[in-house]
Structure formats: structure tokens, C-alpha cells
């Protein structure tokens, strides 16, 4: 790098990033407020006296829990007061206590489940990315060939197959019929008595099916996006120039074209977060994985309102953070945004 002439633009771009970050953080505040309003509204959708009627009809809610809820939400007070009380508690990260017999704070329950869901989704995201990018790039380069058509059909099939159905069939085939892999949970019974490597192997065996099914289902969006993004880039002047310079096709495609085609994908990753979290309900239910999706499904079925409201708010807030990270990544990766001044950065 030539510092003598890039000092100014580096400083400029740092200032720009700080200003950009501040602006984005400020923009998150109204969205957070909106998230709480929608969550509150959805729970009060039920006709008549909202939450109260639901618990009155629901035998799963004990008298004690009902009293606790009435007090916690101030059900005798007008709706906007109830909302304000609830939001004030949220601001202190007080999500209330679960209606379940264990009566634990919602935040504790979420805290122990969230890492499972997040790490599974992260593994899936990495695999999807690692597979979908080359699939999409090659499909664009070899457009209209057998490879292009074959992968197109393959990734569409992944989208079209109901994940729970595929999971059921594979569980039956590999787990029950062939007996190769365990079909539910994350660990075998008594796994704690074994050494670290055995535990790791055990975990991998439990995860192979859920992760493969999830990855197969997630390929379509990204690989198709990659394909069209790549098709667009390949037609640009600088790619023609790179080819005209006599650069090998490999370098043109994987260095020059890919770098530019990858940019919009960063935003796509941020947008895919709510879908991933939402999809975890199905996976965690079918494979008995103790994550957020399973917790939420249990909460919804048991009408555990504090838990449901808590997870809705946390899930949406996570998406906000994910989008922010994606946008920051985009700003960092795109020299046109990063530099924020003429000269276009330091390369």
C-alpha cells in the first residue's frame, strides 16, 4: 500500500464508516419499537378481552399463573398502559416468567436454547455458501449446458421438497432400516462417560441428517442469485478487458468476476436470517433438537404467552442485528462505498 497518498482517503473512509454506523443504529430504534408493537398486537388479536379470554379458556394455565399474568401485564388497565408497562420491562431485558410449571424467566430459557439454533444455522449457512457459490458460478459460466440444467433442477428440487418429508424418509431409510445413524437429539445416552473425540464423533453423527437436509433446502436461493449476478458481471467491460489482456479464463472467472458478483450476496445473507430462524421450528421438532424453534413451538402450543412474546421480539431483534452486520460487511467490501471519496480506495 502507498500510504503517502492514501492517508487522507483512509481517514475519510473511517469517518464515513462511523457516520454510517451511527445512522444505521439510529434507524434501528423505530424498527425496534415497531417490533414490540406488532408482537403486542398479535398477542392481543384474539377477540374479546384479549389475553385474559385465552387463559380463561385454557386449562393448561393454572390459577396461580393467571394471577401472575394479570399482575405482570396489568390486565385491568387500558391497552396502551399495558403496552407501556411491558415495553419498559423489555428495556431492562425483563421478558417475564414462563407459564410452564418450571416458572423460569423467559430470558434464561432463551439463553440456553439460542446457541444451539445459532450454531446449527451457522454451519448450514457456511455449507450453503460453500456449495451454492461454485454451483452458481459454474452454471453461469457454462450457461445452457447439461451442467447448468442439471444443477438448476437439483437446487429447485431442494427448494420444492418439503423438508420434514425428506427428513422423515431419510430418517426411516438411514436410521431405522439401515441403522447407520441416530435419528434424534444431539447426543447418545451416556455420552458424557466417553472422551472428547468420541463425543465429537457422536455429535457429528447426530447432526449429519438435519444439516444435510437443511443445506439441500437452502441451496436454491443463493445459487440462482449467484448465477444471475455472475451472468450480469460477465457481460461487463472490465471482464472483456481482462480476457483481452490474455488472462487465463480461470483467473478471469474466479478472481475478477467472482469478486464483483459476490457483493450483492452479502445483503442476501442478512435477509436470509428470519427464514433460517423460522425454519428451525420444523427441524428441531422433527429431529428433537433442543433449540429455539422447539422452545417456541412448545410455547405456542402451551399458550405460554410471555415465552412466545419474548421469542418473537428476540427473533426479530436478531434479524435487525444480522441485517446491520450484512450492511456493514457490504460497506466494508464495496470500495465504492468504503472510500466515500474520489480515488476509490487504496488498491
Amino acid at each position, binding site marked *: 500500500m502507498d500510504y503517502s497518498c492514501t492517508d487522507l482517503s483512509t481517514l475519510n473512509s473511517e469517518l464515513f464508516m462511523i457516520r454510517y454506523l451511527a445512522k444505521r443504529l439510529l434507524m434501528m430504534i423505530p424498527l425496534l419499537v*415497531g417490533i414490540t408493537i406488532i408482537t403486542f398486537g398479535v398477542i392481543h*388479536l384474539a377477540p374479546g378481552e384479549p389475553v385474559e379470554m385465552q387463559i380463561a379458556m385454557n386449562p393448561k394455565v393454572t390459577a396461580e399463573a393467571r394471577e401472575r399474568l394479570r399482575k405482570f401485564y396489568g390486565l385491568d388497565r387500558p391497552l396502551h398502559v399495558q403496552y407501556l408497562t411491558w415495553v419498559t420491562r423489555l428495556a431492562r431485558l425483563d421478558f417475564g416468567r414462563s407459564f410452564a410449571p418450571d416458572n423460569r424467566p423467559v430470558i434464561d430459557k432463551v439463553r440456553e436454547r439460542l446457541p444451539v439454533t445459532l450454531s446449527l444455522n451457522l454451519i448450514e449457512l457456511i455449507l450453503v455458501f460453500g456449495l451454492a457459490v461454485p454451483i452458481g458460478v459454474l452454471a453461469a459460466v457454462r450457461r445452457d449446458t447439461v451442467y447448468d440444467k442439471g444443477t438448476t433442477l437439483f437446487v429447485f428440487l431442494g427448494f420444492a421438497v418439503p423438508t420434514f418429508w425428506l427428513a422423515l424418509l431419510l430418517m426411516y431409510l438411514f436410521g431405522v432400516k439401515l441403522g447407520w445413524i441416530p435419528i434424534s437429539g444431539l447426543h447418545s445416552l451416556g455420552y458424557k462417560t466417553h472422551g472428547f473425540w468420541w463425543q465429537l464423533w457422536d455429535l457429528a453423527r447426530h447432526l449429519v441428517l438435519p444439516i444435510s437436509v437443511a443445506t439441500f433446502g437452502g441451496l436454491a436461493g443463493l445459487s440462482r442469485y449467484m448465477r444471475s449476478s455472475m451472468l450480469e458481471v460477465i457481460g461487463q467491460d472490465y471482464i472483456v478487458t481482462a480476457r483481452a489482456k490474455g488472462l487465463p479464463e480461470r483467473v478471469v472467472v474466479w478472481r475478477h468476476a467472482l469478486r464483483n458478483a459476490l457483493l450483492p450476496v452479502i445483503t442476501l445473507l442478512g435477509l436470509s436470517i428470519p427464514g433460517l430462524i423460522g425454519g428451525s421450528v420444523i427441524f428441531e421438532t422433527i429431529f428433537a433438537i433442543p433449540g429455539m424453534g422447539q422452545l417456541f413451538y412448545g410455547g*405456542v402450543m402451551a399458550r405460554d404467552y410471555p415465552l412466545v412474546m419474548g421469542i418473537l421480539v428476540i427473533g426479530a431483534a436478531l434479524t435487525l442485528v444480522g441485517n446491520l452486520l450484512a450492511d456493514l460487511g457490504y460497506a466494508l467490501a464495496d470500495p465504492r462505498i468504503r472510500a466515500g471519496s474520489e480515488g476509490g480506495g487504496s488498491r
Partner: protein
Amino acid sequence: MNIRDSYIAQVVLRRFRANSFAMGGLAVVALLFLVSWLAPWITPCGPGDLDLSHVLMPPSAAHWFGTDDLGRDVFTRVVYGARVSLKVGFVAVGIATIIGTIIGLISGYFAGWTDSVMMRLVDLMLCFPTFFLILTVITILEPSIWYIMAIIGLTGWMGVARLVRAEVLSLKERDFVLAARALGASVPRVIFRHILPNALSPVLVSATIGVAGAILTESALSFLGIGVPPPTPSWGNILTGGKDYIEFAWWLTFFPGLAITATVLAYYLVGEGIRDALDPRLHR
């Protein structure tokens, strides 16, 4: 203008026809409509007819897809399930498309703070894991096919709104729109007569793919036991009813799942086919 339009239409049609995947998808969709329309004539019995002397029979000449735990003919139920699944897909997407189009039109045409408010609403709705929201509302309101269609629609309009808005933003500066406004056309007339017809093609693509998504969502809800309530057969609830018997009656799970996969794939291929046919960048 008209000659040019019909030329473009011809090109689009020709490109769609040349796309074998899209045509295959269209054939499957057409077959599906035919089958669900002709359901009473092509099935051996009613979808709810019990036959307790023939319970969990494997596929045979009499029962193409076998029978379920109550002796109902699975083929019949899958055919009638097509009606339900298609209905869910169309109504849900209809709701999403109408809301999304209206919001997109208003947002794109009026710009300014109207636009900001509406687009923040879109951002807001996009934050929620949609499936969580759907689950919550359905369990609060009790599962019914109408609620399911409504809630899938109400949580699926954001993409359409963004698409339409982007189209409107570019269309409203075009000469023919400026000319219409200069000639004194009213705002609704400009929007509905001049802008909307030209903004419809991306909506068509997203609606086609949306039908596929709605069918999948309904089946996932049914799998969790809160989809279309039995005894009405939907592909999702036939499959769910069979999942406990998978070890000795695979056909109960296999055929409805296959129907979902084929249908969703078909809609997706048609949608992508329309998108490619309309894409001006892919002209050769």
C-alpha cells in the same frame, strides 16, 4: 407502440416455449388443475369414505396409493387434497399480491414521507421470522383453512411491495406517463391505467413462485398439527396422519409428499421460466 408490444409478447412467448423446464412445469400445473377439477369422476370413492376391513393396504390395482389407518383410499384423498392445497396457494398469494401491489404503487408514486413510512413498515415486517408469526396467530385464532390463507397472505406481501415500488419509480419518469399527466389525467387514472399494467410482469413472477411457497407453508403447518384441520384432506395433513405409520405403511407419507414436491417444483419452474422470458438482459 402496439406493433412493438405484440412483437415483444411474441418474443417472450417464444422464449418461454423454448424453455423445456418451464413447459414441463406448466404441463404439471395444467394436469393438477384438470385432476382437481375432475376429482369426483376419476376417484373410486369419496375422500372421507371409510372401509375398516381394508386398513393400511399397500398400493394395488384397487387402491393405487394404498389405504390409510381408517381404510380411506389415499389416491382419492391426495386428489381432493390438490383442491385444498391449490386453494390455499391461490387465495394466500392473491391476498399478498393485492396488498403488496397497492402499497408498492402508493409508495413508489407518491414518494416522500409516504414512501418512507411504508418502506419502514416493509422493513419491520421482514424482521420477523414469518413462520413464528404465522404459528402464533394460528394458535391464537384456532386453525381453520380461512385463517391459514389469510395469515400466509398477510405475512407475504413485502417482497411484492418492494418489486412494484421499484417498477413504479422508474415508470413514473417515462415519457408516456409524463404525457398522460400533462394531458390532465387524474392520479388514479395515471396509476391504474398507465403505470400498473406496465409493472405487472415482475408481480406475475413473484406470485407464481409465491403459490409454491404458500403450499409449502401450509404443509409445514399441517405437519406441526395446526394446518388445515381434518377430516378435510390437504397434502400436509394426509402426510402428517401417515408419519406414525412410516415403518409399515410408507405409502401414506410418500405419495402426498411427492405431490407437494412435484407441484411446488412445477410452480417454481414456471415462475423462473416467466422471469427468464421477460428478462431483457438475456436477449440474444
